[in-house]
């Protein structure tokens, strides 16, 4: 019966070996694809950074502060639809969860399915809007404008707001960051607003709407770059792990194969010896 077990184990090991080799091929090709997408994303991010930083300048220079009020908080969580990219989506989900726990009157606009899956179970009633079909193609300004328009059209009111995204640092690291969002009232009551000449509510409205789209666009670009670089690293680690498993399995396979051969030899030889002694 040990012989039978040996043969069965051999078959099982070879099946497992084949499947791990396939997985390694898949993760390696995913890493290549991510590397190509990352290069493109990083290039587009470099062009988008001055735009994104410029869009935040007014709020800093005019010292705009969150509105005093009880209209609650708005969080725009930027992620994407695809996984296998390390901690990119879970870090955003974690921060949203702690924020909602701290201030329950929070509405979340989710860009991308992954964070929706994280929040769906416990915080479904805080989810105001979900944007899907995110991440397959690089984001363009029109996408951000569409999301911004939907947010404006939905009439969500908030006293305090932020955009949560992963800011790209280097190929191996990203940082989950938040960009503040201010309502029109907050801008109108900014301490340094009187310094700005000839402003009426129309200009402030157009300005805040355009700036919402601009900030969203910038955060989408940063997040996309972080996601691709994180996926590259994750798939690279997966390939290395698969490689280690293949080495170990190959060793086990060879040892098992030799054990089976040895067992067969022993049986043959002991059978022959038994026949000889009989004679």
């Amino acid at each position, binding site marked *: 019966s040990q012989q039978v077990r040996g043969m069965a184990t051999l078959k099982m090991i070879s099946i497992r070996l084949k499947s791990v080799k396939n997985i390694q091929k898949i993760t390696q090709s995913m890493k290549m694809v991510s590397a190509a997408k990352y290069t493109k994303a990083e290039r*587009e991010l470099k*062009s*988008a*950074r*001055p*735009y994104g*930083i*410029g*869009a935040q*300048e*007014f709020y800093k*220079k*005019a010292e705009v502060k969150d509105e005093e009020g009880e209209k609650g908080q708005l969080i725009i969580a930027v992620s994407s639809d695809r996984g296998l990219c390390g901690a990119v989506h879970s870090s955003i989900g974690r921060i949203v969860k702690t924020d909602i726990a701290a201030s329950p009157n929070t509405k979340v606009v989710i860009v991308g399915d992954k964070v929706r899956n994280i929040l769906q179970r416990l915080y479904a009633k805080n989810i105001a809007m979900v944007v899907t079909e995110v991440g397959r193609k690089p984001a*363009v*300004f029109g996408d951000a404008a569409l999301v911004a328009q939907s947010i404006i059209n939905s009439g969500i009111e908030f006293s305090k707001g932020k955009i949560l995204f992963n800011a790209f640092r280097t190929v191996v690291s990203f940082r989950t960051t938040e960009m503040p969002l201010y309502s029109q009232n907050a801008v109108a009551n900014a301490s*340094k607003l009187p*310094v*700005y*000449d*000839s*402003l009426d509510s129309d*200009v*402030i409205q*157009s*300005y805040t709407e*355009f*700036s919402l789209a*601009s900030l969203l*666009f910038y955060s989408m670009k940063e997040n996309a770059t972080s996601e691709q670089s994180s996926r590259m690293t994750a798939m690279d680690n997966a390939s290395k792990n698969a490689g280690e498993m293949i080495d170990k399995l190959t060793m086990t396979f060879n040892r098992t194969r030799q054990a089976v051969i040895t067992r067969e030899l022993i049986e043959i030889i002991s059978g022959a010896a038994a026949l000889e002694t009989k004679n």
Partner: protein
Amino acid sequence: MALTRSALRLFSGRFTQACQVRGYADAPSMSLTFAAPSQVLYNNISVKQIDVPSFSGSFGILPAHVPTLAVLKPGVVTVFENDGSTKKFFVSSGTVTINEDSTVQLLAEEAVPVDTLDISAAKELLAQSQSQLASASSEVAKAEAEISIEVSEALVKACE
């Protein structure tokens, strides 16, 4: 095109450095960041003057301009650089922010150098938008066609 543009930016940067070393008594400088989502035209570059088309009228921005916010209309932005050269860009829409410390952020949705515009394509776009307005049924479609006409009229004007 991009090579000459970046070379010019480098040149104007060095020139302003030399200017500052020579005469601090000059007018205070104005730092311009002019960018579109897909490209940067000026990133914190010191310039002399900027003319912008806005919904509250076209105006020129000089150093120490009063702080203000404005919404851009489709039209031509003219940047007068420190070395005396002038650059014209067509912008489709966007915002301009002038802060207290004379920093200017010009964020355009689309910005292209005027000499890359093709007048025949612009005239074709105008004709198309006019026919769109004629055949528009809903308020939204009408508004979109009117926006298209405004942009194409400005494009044709910029080419001339």
